[in-house]
């Protein structure tokens, strides 16, 4: 991989980062803190929305602030503000200690952090070519309008929604051990959906692009990493075919799940289930817990022996990819499921210490300076079979099944057992061949049954990165961007529902 050509913006480096760090960390040490860290974050977000090729909204926001987190007599304290002066940094250090004191009466577990080498002068810039905030707004709107018009011009397409969200995230991290880290990441999420309405029957339906959000710049919209033209050209016909497709007969089918759908199933049923904070109960009242408890590490049969899952914060263009996490831990890659058995969790420094591990694997993340870092998801990905088949070869091996493409509706329970997913489109498979679309499909399963039925994974040629900007967790709520790579995969005899029948019609 070539070295990134970009550098951190001068306007961020020009902020009084070192002075804020010295002020806050010195005060925290004076107040007796065992550990203190300071983050300064500037997050620029722009969302362009078009409705039927006409501008609906273009909003541009920047969030700049600082936060001090301390461990004081074994208890966490956290305070955040928006005034970037040394005096405010000192005040936040004092307030964080005050919060720790209020909290001490409620704390029984003593906070200790797993050690991390000091990174005194670290820099990271994500891999992108064109900073989306260097592109004129009018060019962005014009590009999305052109895409919308092309789809809108087709017979049967009544409405088109198009949007693109762009984020530039800049962080400075400093701690009392001496780490000083500056990072800049860019990500974009373009999206287009076509809608058809049948006034006579009142029926309506939609088809959305499969292009995933990615850690890329504006070049992603102009040909790098995705063939937009080809995808937009086929949307109207795919939608027309969907509206005329027969409603699915509910029952059990072999599912061939495309990576454009499978990434989300991995996210929900493997990604969240292998977050150690959930498994330990920290999220029990909100996001939930996990069936994959630490006492089963090394023994839990998660799926069939074909299942190989890794966690990483290093994948090129991954949305969770960083240089260092929000506790100053260097990005790593590790095994989560090996030969179908649970072998690893996602960690932060406190939990790594609790588990007696020598080091965190670097999964702490805060979505802004206003929020405390919590353990958030790495890029959790299903490995392709190095000698595995193409999608056509996979389908050829299925006698009676359904090919699932694109994500849509998703829901999973608080212990990550029972899930239900729909998709953008579904094809019947008969005798190893696609036999047209079917509609109203949802697939429902229990996580370990589903992964236990994994019969075959595709080769590297089928591997794709999917992802989302808006993974939710923690109270107060925080969102995190994350990607999941996977090949096409076959699952045997999965329960398929008819969503119209589920609605009682």
């Amino acid at each position, binding site marked *: 991989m070539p070295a990134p050509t970009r550098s951190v913006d001068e306007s961020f480096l020009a902020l009084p980062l070192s002075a804020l760090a010295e002020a806050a960390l010195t005060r925290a040490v004076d107040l007796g803190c065992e550990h203190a860290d300071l983050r300064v974050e500037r997050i620029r977000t722009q969302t362009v929305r078009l409705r039927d090729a006409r501008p609906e909204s273009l909003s541009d926001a920047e969030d700049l602030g600082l936060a001090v987190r301390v461990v004081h007599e074994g208890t966490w304290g956290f305070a955040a503000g928006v005034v970037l002066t040394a005096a405010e940094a000192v005040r936040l250090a004092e307030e964080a200690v005050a919060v720790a004191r209020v909290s001490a009466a409620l704390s029984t577990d003593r906070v200790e952090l797993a050690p991390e080498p000091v990174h005194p002068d670290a820099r990271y810039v994500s891999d992108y070519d064109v900073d989306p905030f260097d592109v004129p707004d009018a060019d962005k709107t014009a590009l999305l309008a052109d895409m919308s018009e092309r789809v809108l011009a087709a017979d049967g397409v009544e409405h088109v929604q198009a949007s693109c969200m762009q984020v530039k995230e800049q962080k400075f991290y400093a701690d009392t051990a001496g780490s000083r880290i500056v990072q800049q990441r860019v990500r974009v999420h373009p999206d287009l959906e076509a809608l058809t309405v049948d006034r006579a029957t009142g029926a309506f339906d939609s088809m959305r692009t499969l292009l995933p959000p990615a850690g890329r710049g504006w070049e992603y919209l102009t040909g790098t990493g995705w063939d937009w033209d080809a995808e937009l050209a086929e949307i109207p016909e795919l939608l027309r075919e969907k509206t005329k497709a027969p409603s699915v007969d509910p029952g059990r089918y072999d599912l061939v799940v495309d990576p454009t759908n499978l990434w989300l199933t991995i996210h929900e049923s493997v990604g969240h289930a292998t977050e150690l904070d959930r498994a330990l109960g920290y999220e029990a009242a909100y996001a939930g817990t996990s069936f994959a408890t630490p006492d089963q590490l090394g023994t839990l049969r998660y799926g069939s022996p074909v299942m190989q899952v890794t966690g990483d914060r290093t994948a090129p263009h991954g949305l969770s990819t960083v240089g260092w996490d929000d506790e100053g831990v260097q990005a790593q890659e590790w095994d989560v499921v090996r030969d179908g058995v649970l072998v690893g969790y996602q960690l932060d420094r406190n939990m790594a210490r609790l588990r007696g591990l020598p080091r965190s694997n670097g999964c702490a993340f805060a979505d802004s300076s206003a929020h405390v870092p919590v353990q958030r998801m790495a890029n959790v990905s299903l490995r392709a079979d190095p000698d595995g088949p193409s999608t056509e070869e996979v389908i050829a091996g299925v006698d009676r099944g359904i090919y699932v493409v694109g994500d849509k509706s998703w829901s999973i329970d*608080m212990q990550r057992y029972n899930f239900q997913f729909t998709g953008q489109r579904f094809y019947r498979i008969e005798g190893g061949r696609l036999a047209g679309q079917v509609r109203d499909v949802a697939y429902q399963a229990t996580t370990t049954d589903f992964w236990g039925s994994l019969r075959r994974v595709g080769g590297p040629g089928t591997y794709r990165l999917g992802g989302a900007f808006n993974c939710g967790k923690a109270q107060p709520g925080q969102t995190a961007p994350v990607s999941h790579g996977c090949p096409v995969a076959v699952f045997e005899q999965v329960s398929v529902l008819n969503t119209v029948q589920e609605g009682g019609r």
Partner: protein
Amino acid sequence: MTARRAQDVVEQVLAASTADAQITYVVEGSEANLRWAGNSLTTNGAMRSRRVAVISFVDGGAGMAVGSVARSGFPDVAELVAASEHAARTAGPAEDAVPLIGPDGGAPAATGDWDADAAETSIDVFADFAPALGQAFGEARDRGRLLFGFAEHRMETVYLGSSTGLRLRHDQPTGRVELNGKSADFGTSVWAGTGTRDFRDVSVPDLAAEVDRRYGWSQRTVELPAGRYETVLPPSAVSDLMIYLYWTMEARDADEGRNVFARTGGGTRTGERLAALPLTLRSDPAEPGLECAPFQVVGGSSSAASVFDNGMATPAVNWLEDGVLANLVRPRAWALKTTAPATAAVDNLVLEHPGATASLDDMLAATDRGLLLTTLWYIREVDPQTLLLTGLTRDGVYLVEGGEVTGAVNNFRFNESPVDLLGRVVEAGRTERTLPREWNDWFTRAAMPPLRVPDFNMSSVSPAS
């Protein structure tokens, strides 16, 4: 030099405008929170924020165009105004353009004191709550049980000014507490929660007593299969379904035939009976205990709101009247286009059955055999055509037999449409303030009755506890 007081920032930004019109608002925020797990604190925080938003309106000849820019903290006023105006000058004409609201038409008659300082909260809001919680931890520990949960208090003051002369201010306190009890093996899980404006009305012993009552119900466990069951939904579960329905009530989408409120053949379902009972679903910014902003603050247009409607009064509105769909959310521009009333969304929601007196306990006493839910979770849209939603039951499904709770049942995945459900409700109890479980990150001001549904669709069993 940027002013420190929010009101002065609004005046500076308005004075710097060279656009045809401008809306500016500053939101001053403060918040404090405590989070706990396994009878011990896990995270906490005290945060302050400030957001300055500038919306410039420029008519380049083809129609009014909009530039909306927001920055946190204390941005440079000249740069901020320039960025907003540049965005407006390079944007195409807005589809939702209408004249801005002024003091003489469309704005609320009276709002908070413009000149007063912003309201604030701090970690001290928990001065009584934290020790009481510590005591509850001790009691739980003594019984071999675990407590999890979250308490948060936020205060936001918005100052909204416009080039048409509006100066509107609103203080919004928002608080919530969730208390989740679990057995040591996590096999039993129970929940109690409440919304609050100031934490003075929050009683940890009352919440702990509700948690204890539900432990009592969980001593006997019963395995039940998927199927359709007579089900009593408590106010929290009702609120999460009704909030989703409310969020879908967009007139434009209905007019365009693309949501559940579209009428076959064109138009909306306004005037159609949706509920079998004479239920009222309504919002009111002055609702006691659920008070919220009496005017609109909009950063970006959508089918639910328009930046041109900033400052527009949001009076009390009935969404359902006597079980009949009465109103949909409709920005002014779309109202003009469709000759229908402009109606703004309000940040609270009340469902009522006029004259109902039955409490949840009364409804259980009148249940021969059925299920009682606690909360709903992970609610997602499966089919927009019918507004079919899926989700899970959470933290307590109880079997009711002969008027009494006789045990705790496994959890289920449900597939249900709140619109369809309204048509099948056979009994509604008396309305009370409740905390939505699924949506309380975004929506805490709700009052709902318990509802009885004869055939709630439990699609499959969830092994989760």
